[in-house]
Each structure stands twice: as C-alpha cells, then as structure tokens.
C-alpha cells in the first residue's frame, strides 16, 4: 500500500463524486423530457426512429404493458444475437474465419448479453467475427444498458406519480437513454481510448515479425467502440479474452483510470437523477452515501489483501514488497502498468457495479481479496450496481428497510409519501430471494451433478470459491469469473444462461409491479411519525439491512470457500 496508490484511489473517488451532479442532472432532464443541449442534433433522429418503428411516443403504458414491451424487446434482441453468432461463418466482416458457435454457447451468449451480464464462456478474439462483435454484442451492450435505466425510470415514476395508471413508455425510455446518454458518451470515450492506443480498424489481424524472430499475430478490430459502451453500460464483455487486462483494451494507466470511472459513473449519477426526480435531492445523496461507504470499505480491504506477499512463496527469496522500483504484492494475474492499487480498484468497482470487465484476474487474487469481490456481488449488485439495475436493486433494500423500521415502531411504513403495504413487501421479498436461489440453489445443483462439478479446476476450498463466484456473477448479471472455472461445457453454458435470465427478469418484473402499484397510490403528507429517509440514521439502517439480509445468507458458504482457504494459506497449506 503506497502513498501514490492512495492518491490514485482518492483521485478516482473525486472524479466519481464530481460526475454525480453533472451527469445525474443531465439524465434527469433527459428522462423528464426537458430540453437538453443535444436536442437540436438528436431530436430529429429521435423522431425519425419513432416513425420508422411505428411508436407513438406520447402513448403511456401501465406496468404490465411496460413489462410486455420490455420482455418482447429483450426476447427479440436475444433471438437476433443468437442467430448472428450461430450464422457468423456465413456472414461478412469475418477476417479471422470464425465459424458459427454451438447452440449451447449461442444461448449463453444471447442470454448473457441481453441481460447486461456479458459472462463470456468463449475467447473473443477467436470465437467471434467482427460482425458479431459489432452488430451482435455491441448492440446489446447499448440496449441492455438502456433497458436497465428504463426500468429504473419506470420505478421512479411509480414513486412520484399519484393516482396514476401509467408509468411511462418503455420504447421512449430505451430510445432516449441510448440517443441522449449512451451513444454520445460512447463516441467521446471511444475516441479518447483510441488516442490512448486502443485499436479501431476493420483490418485484422496484423502479422509482425518479433525482435527475436518468430511471427506474432495480433487480432485487431473495432475495439474502442465496443470497449466504451462495455464500460459505460456496465456490460463488461471484452473484445479479447483477457478483457481490459489486454494491452490493446487498456494500454495506459490513464486509459485505465477513465475505464474504471466509466464502470461506476452512470450508476452513481443515477442517485442524483433519482433525487431530482422525486423532488428531494437529499434522498439521492443518502443512497449515494450508502453505496459509497460500502464501496470504500470493500476497496480498502481488497487493496490491503492484494498488497500482501503470498506467504506460500516465503522460502523462495522473492522481493514481494512495494518499492520505488516495483509494485510488489500479489502479482500473479496482474499487469505491471497497473500494479496493485489500480487492479484492486478495478476489481472492487467491477464487482460492485455488475460490470464484470477485469484488468487483473480475480481467480489469482488472495483468498480474502476474492472474498470481498464475491460479497460485492452477493449483496445483490446494489453498491452502485449496473446502470439502472443497481439503483432499483437498492430501492428493494430501501423498501425492506422502511418495512422493518415500520415494524419496530408499529406504523405502516411509507417511503417518499407512498404507503408501503403488503403487496409491495411481498414483491420486494420475491426480488430479494433471487440472489440466494441463484447462488446457493443452482450452485448446489452444479456441485452435486458431475457434469456441473467438472467445471471446477482447482482442488480444495478454492474450487468451491470458483463455483460460488460463477453463480453469484451469473445471478447478479455481473459477468466476471474466477476464470479457471471451466464455463465452456454444455452444462455450464446452459445453466449459467438460465440463472442469468432468472437473475434479470425475476427482479425486473416484481419491480415493475411495485412501480405500477405505487403509481396508483395517493400521496400521504409526512407526519410526526414519518421516518425521515435521508439522514444518517436511515443510511445506517439501510446498510445494516443490506449486510444482514443480503450478506448473512451467504456466510456459511463463504466460510467453506475463501475463509477456509485463507486460514489454510496462512498456516502454510496449499492444494
């Protein structure tokens, strides 16, 4: 742990906080239909798209119509992607000669990209054609992110409207989120990344003769354009197998800083958007504080863990300490240009945000470093979380918190002037149960079925960690992995695809139902008995509920995985 490392982390947090009001205020204007700077350019394009698609942007939808549109749009998106990767061998823009992928892998890719997960059971530079990278996964990088933001907007409208049947128009939310937010940001970021060295070409590969003689084949492609939205849209699926550890995907420490920022920026700024839209900025900052505190705790822990020398290498006379000449620490699976602090920061951000891109390999993290990453995911991806998805997940915890607080004082719970009644609580609990079922239920199934357990590549407790990580990543729509896990079997491709879908839609549909039922309610004026939901008391309560309800569920499983592994390691045991 170095002073420069600390400076780096502080700079990152400052840039993140600075983005919150700017980006958050902009998004509030976009989604309430107020005029924005880009209006003259994007407005005509927006209207043209509605005309081409036959959508009446003025037509509002009730929650079930909104849900139907969302599911139809996502289903068709998945089918399109499935078709593209199956047939890519016959389609143009395929300089590497990639052939169509197997049905199980195509299902896995379609499910994973349409749900904003981007779990990759394949190696991008080999398995996908340039057309699949562009017209396939890049499209869903945009649309799955826009879908997540759309759902959050529907939920916010549910909280703010009174006696209303409708919660907005799904198509309008998706189009506006893409055109006014994701596309312009991606263009700017992509060009910035090209400047830093990320390739952007349709000519691939480049073949070079290395200094020592052998040739090296360098696959290239439209990397920067995909990379920008992969980071901004909390997608995480890399152009290359090594993701953002690959020097072409992440060439410099500055590119690394911007990419790490992009993992969290929109998700963090949405808390401000939320505050603006509910008419009380303090509500947004309260939720931001919950996220920022939990994030910083995880970051400090991961950084410390990865800075430690591996005790099992003690007898080899290695220099594992940080100095002015090297990063030191746990360097297996890490890049020299990033060292420890930037790798720990990325790992914490990507697991907290359900992004899933990596700049260091999580499978080779220390046991406790890996534990923090798993906890980030198992808390339900609410520490910033995916774009839109993080905040709507957080609002589930808020609903549970006001309910528990209401039970303690014997009053009907309310949030932002809306009474939270049994229907909302039931739906919130349903959404909350998805993560434990996905991780523990499907994880256990995979352990007892030989075809599933075969994916574990590491003996001992770390093998269990690999499995727990995979299913937490799937159900949380994260997409990162302990990549030694053999995810490229038909069993895992299928099961993880299923869990990814459950994790996304069994959270989304109850939340849309909540949005619908809240929208229909009257506003109750605050009284002396109303629990303020913006102060330190409420912030601590939400954190407590997240840690107890979200975290404690997984304590036994985690004790058998990373905790046992850590204890074994410090006593000199290997596996």
């Amino acid at each position, binding site marked *: 742990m170095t002073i420069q490392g600390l400076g780096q982390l502080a700079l990152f947090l400052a840039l993140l906080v600075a983005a919150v009001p700017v980006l958050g205020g902009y998004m509030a204007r976009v989604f309430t239909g107020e005029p924005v700077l880009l209006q003259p350019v994007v407005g005509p394009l927006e209207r043209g798209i509605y005309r081409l698609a036959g959508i009446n942007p003025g037509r509002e939808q009730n929650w079930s119509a909104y849900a139907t549109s969302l599911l139809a749009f996502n289903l068709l998106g998945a089918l399109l992607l499935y078709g593209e990767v199956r047939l890519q061998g016959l389609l143009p823009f395929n300089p590497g000669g990639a052939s169509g992928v197997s049905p199980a892998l195509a299902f896995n890719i379609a499910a994973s990209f349409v749900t904003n997960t981007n779990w990759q059971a394949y190696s991008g530079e080999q398995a996908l054609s340039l057309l699949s990278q562009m017209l396939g996964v890049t499209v869903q990088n945009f649309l799955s992110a826009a879908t997540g933001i759309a759902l959050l907007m529907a939920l916010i409208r549910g909280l703010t409207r009174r006696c209303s049947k409708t919660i907005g128009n799904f198509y309008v939310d998706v189009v506006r989120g893409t055109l006014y937010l994701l596309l312009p940001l991606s263009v700017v970021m992509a060009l910035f990344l090209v400047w830093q060295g990320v390739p952007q*070409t349709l000519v691939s590969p480049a073949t070079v003769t290395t200094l020592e003689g*052998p040739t090296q084949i360098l696959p290239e492609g439209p990397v920067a354009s995909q990379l920008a939205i992969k980071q901004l849209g909390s997608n995480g699926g890399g152009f290359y*197998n090594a993701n953002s550890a690959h020097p072409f995907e992440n060439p410099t420490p500055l590119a690394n800083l911007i990419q790490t920022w992009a993992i969290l920026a929109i998700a963090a700024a949405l808390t401000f958007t939320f505050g603006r839209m509910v008419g009380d900025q303090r509500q947004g900052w309260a939720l931001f504080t919950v996220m920022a505190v939990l994030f910083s705790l995880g970051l400090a822990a991961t950084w410390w863990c990865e800075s430690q020398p591996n005790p*099992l290498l003690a007898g080899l*006379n290695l220099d594992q300490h940080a100095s002015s000449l090297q990063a030191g620490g746990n360097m297996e699976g890490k890049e020299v240009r990033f060292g420890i602090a930037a790798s720990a920061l990325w790992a914490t951000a990507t697991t907290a945000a359900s992004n899933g891109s990596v700049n260091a390999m999580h499978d080779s993290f220390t046991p406790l470093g890996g534990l923090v990453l798993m906890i980030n995911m198992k808390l339900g991806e609410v520490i910033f979380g995916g774009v839109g998805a993080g905040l709507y997940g957080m609002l589930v915890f808020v609903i549970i918190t006001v309910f528990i607080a209401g039970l303690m004082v014997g009053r009907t719970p309310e949030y932002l002037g809306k009474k939270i009644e049994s229907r909302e609580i039931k739906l919130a609990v349903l959404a909350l149960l998805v993560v434990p079922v996905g991780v523990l239920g499907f994880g256990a199934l995979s352990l007892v079925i030989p075809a599933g357990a075969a994916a574990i590549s590491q003996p001992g407790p770390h093998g269990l960690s690999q499995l727990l990580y995979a299913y937490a990543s799937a159900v949380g729509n994260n997409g990162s992995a302990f990549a030694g896990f053999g995810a490229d079997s038909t069993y895992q491709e299928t099961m993880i695809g299923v869990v990814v879908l459950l994790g996304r839609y069994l959270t989304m549909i109850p939340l849309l139902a909540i949005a619908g039922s809240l929208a229909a309610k009257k506003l109750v004026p605050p009284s002396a008995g109303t629990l303020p939901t913006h102060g330190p008391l409420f912030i601590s309560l939400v954190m407590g509920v997240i840690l107890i309800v979200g975290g404690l569920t997984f304590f036994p499983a985690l004790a058998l995985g990373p905790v046992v592994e850590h204890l074994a390691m410090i006593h000199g045991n290997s596996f």
Partner: protein
Amino acid sequence: MLSEFKPALRLLLVMAVLTGLLYPLAVTGLAQLLFPFQAHGSLIEDNSGRVIGSALVGQRFQKPGYFQSRPSAAGADGYDATQSGASNLATTSKRLIADITARAEARRADAGPTPGPLPVDLVTASASGLDPDLSPAAAFYQIPRIAHVRGVSEEKLRILVGLLVEKRSYGILGEPRVNLLKLNLALDEMTRTE
C-alpha cells in the same frame, strides 16, 4: 400479444443498425482520421522499415542477450496474441507454487555472483499473457547476465534502463515500468553502435 412484437422488432432493427453499424463505423472513420497510428495497433518498425511489433503488446523475449519478459500463459509458449489470458491459478495452488519455484531457480543465474531477492513480477504470469512491461526492479535484476553475454559494462546498461523507465502517469497513476520491446530495441542499437 403479437401486436406487441411489431414495434419491438422494428425498433430493434433500427437500433441495431444505429448502434451496431453506424456507431462503430463512424468511430472507425474518426479514429483513422485523428489517430491513424493508434487505430491500427501502434505498430512500430525497426531501422530497415520492417514491422517488428506493436508498441503496446508484449512479445516473448527468451534469448539470454535480451531483457527477458515475464512468464506468460497466453498459448503454449506464451505471448501468443491470438490466445490472451492468464494462468488463473489460485494463490494456494500447488501448481502455481511449483511453477514459481522452478522459474525462481532458473532466474538465479541471471543475477551474477551475489543474487538479491528476485522481483516478484519476473516469476509471475500477467493477466493478459501479453504484458509489454517489466518493473524497473525486474529489468535491473537481469543486468549482470546481459552485461556478460553482450560484453558491455553493467554501468552502461543501468543508464540505459534508467533512461527508458516510464514513471507513473501524472505522478500517481499506474506503476513505474519499462517497455521491453523499446528497451531491447535500444539495447540492440547501443551494442551495434559500439
């Protein structure tokens, strides 16, 4: 129900063309115009004009006369850019410990008569398998071997490495490092002019 699919399908196709074709192609055009060198992969040539690699992507250096690269899990021999990736071995893995032990023993010969502790990045595999850099410590550690093989003074090599060390960006971002391809090119240049 079916009527729901019509606007969804039409919107999907429009958005696919916009985000999947127009966007990447527009960015490609702009990138080629503004940053042609980077957009094509930062390919660099030697003095005779032969493309010898990308300034960004690590290549395998194993000859004793060169500064050697970190271990790599990309492909069977390492540094295969079509198979980027890591060992993905756990910190508690017996295989990892055996690998590192073997590498450490092989490396001891590099350090001359009084070997100091071995910099950890020199015996651990990177995340991409294509790490273009070494820590300055790992470069300095190899100087006695290279001085012996090339017949140049250690002092000169230390100055050369010192010149090519890239500091942290803006004083705090990333870690100090030496780009191996640039270092070895400079090394060839230095010994040729002598």
